[in-house]
């Protein structure tokens, strides 16, 4: 492996190019017409345009991406996350083209792509799954026996249904009969079948996931866990490692479950096995496996001191985990990551597109920034609006949290509205500080109304507004800037603003 084509964009493409460079490999970027000048193109040794702005015609265009690999002489493909990263047909096409696929073999992940077959694999591997039972005996005794096995609260679900229709939460045995009869009626009319099953409902569930690595020599290890319970509509917002509500015994059990699941499918490369953790019962249940590098991989890297992208590349070229992870894997301290999005939380989280007039990412001890954008870059409307991830490490959670908040206060993004104020508010929420969050917490807490940009009416803001008017006439002479003072030298501080129009696009 000499040259790696990165089939992605944004911060992850920049991140992967850096990993390639560590091993002396060259990095090839692909880009859409909307991304011709993008940061990830500038981070690579070479780049090839693979189509128009729409993802379906560019970043998802298998033929164009394989042609780009051929044209540049790339001998391997790293898919990043999203786009084609979990597309089995793409994996097979890459291998058929004689290229190395930096990820798991298609045959390993095909059996776990559907939730039901993945659950069967988990059970075969001895990994706990949420208890469930098919209601084939609909007598009072029959449903009570099934419910006693599953436990309360539980969900009654139509077997052939979907979209939550007919689904009912039941909290106690006394309500079960009515719920089952109602669900049967709804299921019969909606899906033509009144077959039901029940499943454990995990209250205040926490999202805990296990980072795993597998090599081509049959070794599978876990790299400990991450907690990602702060989510907005199933989109992770804050991620951290370790999960500080787990006891050492619980941590060992959940991490071993992750490893066992990956070993069961013969997993190769970096992957993540996701679990729900029930904080009342102190049990974990298998959710699904993500067969790619995750957005939040830096929190693991930060606490275990392993470069996961480099590990992926070394595994792909056949190295053994015992060499890659010489000395073993241990957790040290605590890391927290936030995702900085170009979105307006105060306006229904509307995604923002535009030009980044000015960007200043934090630069502080124990803080890492994985950014896909710099000052002047365009944020196109066609893709996920994540601008960067900011990760802070501390000897404990509080130290990491304070460092991250300080880093966010230092973060400047002009030109598009971002979620930075919301992230700052979140990190200061008492429930977050006390680690009393669950996967539904953020939606309950902020819903569609979240802290947006602050208001400013005092001196600093007014002076800055006025000073802005002076930028223009002086802008051409850098040396003069430091010396010049606002005053008689400039008769009209608003000269620079003279070209403005209200509602410019009209």
């Amino acid at each position: 492996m000499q040259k790696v084509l990165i089939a992605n964009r944004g911060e992850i493409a920049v991140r992967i190019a850096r990993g390639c460079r560590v091993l002396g490999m060259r990095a090839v970027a692909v880009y859409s017409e909307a991304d011709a000048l993008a940061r990830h193109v500038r981070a690579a040794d070479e780049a090839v345009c693979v189509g128009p702005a729409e993802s379906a015609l560019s970043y998802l265009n298998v033929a164009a991406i394989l042609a780009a690999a051929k044209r540049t002489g790339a001998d391997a493909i790293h898919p990043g996350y999203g786009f084609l990263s979990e597309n089995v047909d793409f994996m097979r096409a890459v291998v058929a083209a004689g290229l190395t696929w930096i990820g798991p073999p298609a045959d390993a992940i095909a059996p776990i792509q559907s939730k039901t077959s993945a659950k069967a694999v988990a059970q075969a591997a001895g990994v706990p799954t949420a208890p469930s039972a098919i209601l084939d005996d609909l007598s009072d005794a029959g449903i009570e026996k099934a419910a006693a096995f599953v436990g309360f609260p539980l969900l009654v679900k139509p077997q052939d249904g979907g979209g939550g229709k007919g689904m009912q939460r039941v909290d106690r045995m006394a309500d079960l009969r009515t719920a089952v009869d109602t669900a049967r009626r709804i299921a019969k009319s909606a899906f033509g079948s009144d077959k039901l099953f029940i499943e454990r409902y995990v209250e205040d569930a926490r999202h805990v996931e296990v980072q795993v690595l597998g090599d081509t020599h049959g070794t599978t290890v876990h790299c400990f866990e991450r907690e990602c319970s702060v989510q907005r509509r199933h989109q992770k917002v804050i991620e951290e490692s370790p999960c500080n509500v787990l006891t050492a015994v619980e941590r060992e059990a959940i991490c071993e479950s992750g490893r066992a699941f990956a070993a069961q499918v013969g997993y190769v490369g970096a992957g993540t096995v996701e679990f729900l953790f029930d904080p009342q019962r102190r049990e974990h249940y298998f959710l699904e496996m993500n067969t790619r590098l995750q957005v939040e991989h830096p929190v693991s890297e930060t606490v275990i001191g392993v470069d996961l992208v480099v590990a992926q590349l070394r595994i792909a070229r056949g190295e053994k985990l015992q060499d890659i992870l010489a000395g073993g894997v241990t957790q040290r301290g605590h890391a927290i990551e936030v995702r900085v999005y170009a979105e307006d939380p105060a306006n229904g989280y509307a995604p923002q597109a535009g030009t980044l007039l000015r960007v200043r990412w934090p630069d502080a001890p124990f803080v890492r920034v994985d950014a896909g954008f710099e000052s002047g870059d365009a944020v196109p409307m066609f893709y996920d609006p994540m601008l960067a991830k900011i990760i802070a490490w501390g000897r404990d959670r509080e130290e990491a949290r304070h460092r991250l908040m300080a880093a966010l206060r230092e973060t400047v993004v002009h030109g598009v509205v971002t979620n930075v104020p919301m992230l700052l508010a979140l990190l200061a929420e008492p429930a977050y500080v006390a680690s009393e969050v669950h996967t539904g917490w953020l939606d309950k807490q902020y819903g569609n109304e979240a802290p947006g940009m602050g208001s400013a009416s005092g001196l600093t803001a007014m002076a800055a507004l006025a000073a802005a008017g002076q930028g223009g006439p002086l802008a051409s002479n850098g040396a003069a800037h430091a010396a010049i003072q606002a005053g008689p030298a400039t008769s009209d501080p608003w000269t620079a603003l003279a070209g403005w129009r209200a509602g410019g696009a009209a």
Partner: protein
Amino acid sequence: MKRIFESPDNSRLELLATPSPGGLLLSWSAADGMTSMEVLARRAPNGDWLLEHDGITRPALVSIDRQSVWISSLDAGDDLSGTVRFRRMETKRGTTGVDLGVRSPMTGRVVAVHVQEGDIVEKNQPLVVVEAMKMEHVLRAPRAGQVRKVACQAGQLVEGGAELVELLDAVAAT
């Protein structure tokens, strides 16, 4: 020279800056009344602003685009924390009211227009619905007023920041 801005909280802000021996004499009137102060503004080689008042200098970053001035300050001080955006407003000739441009918060497609020219609208009344990345976004009237112009139609693609509806302040409209 006087300039009028819309504060991040949609309140109206008038700012007057005149050269003075000590730098700039600033006067502004906002929701909390009228204030005047003298400030010395210096610009660092990297473009940052250093704003001195009463012998104390505070740093600020300022960026300007067609519609807005973006300001960030590390020093939270009394009034400015993180990044704030001021939208510029203009008093147009021939009217006594202030135009309140309602702009698209993002690049996207207009899916519905709920008002016509001349309509009297209440504060928070839905004006236009814009869709981007599969999310619908309702633009509401920032204040009571009268629709002076509708600058978009359903189905149209609009840029982020484009003015979609012009409103006339209720004071001027009545």
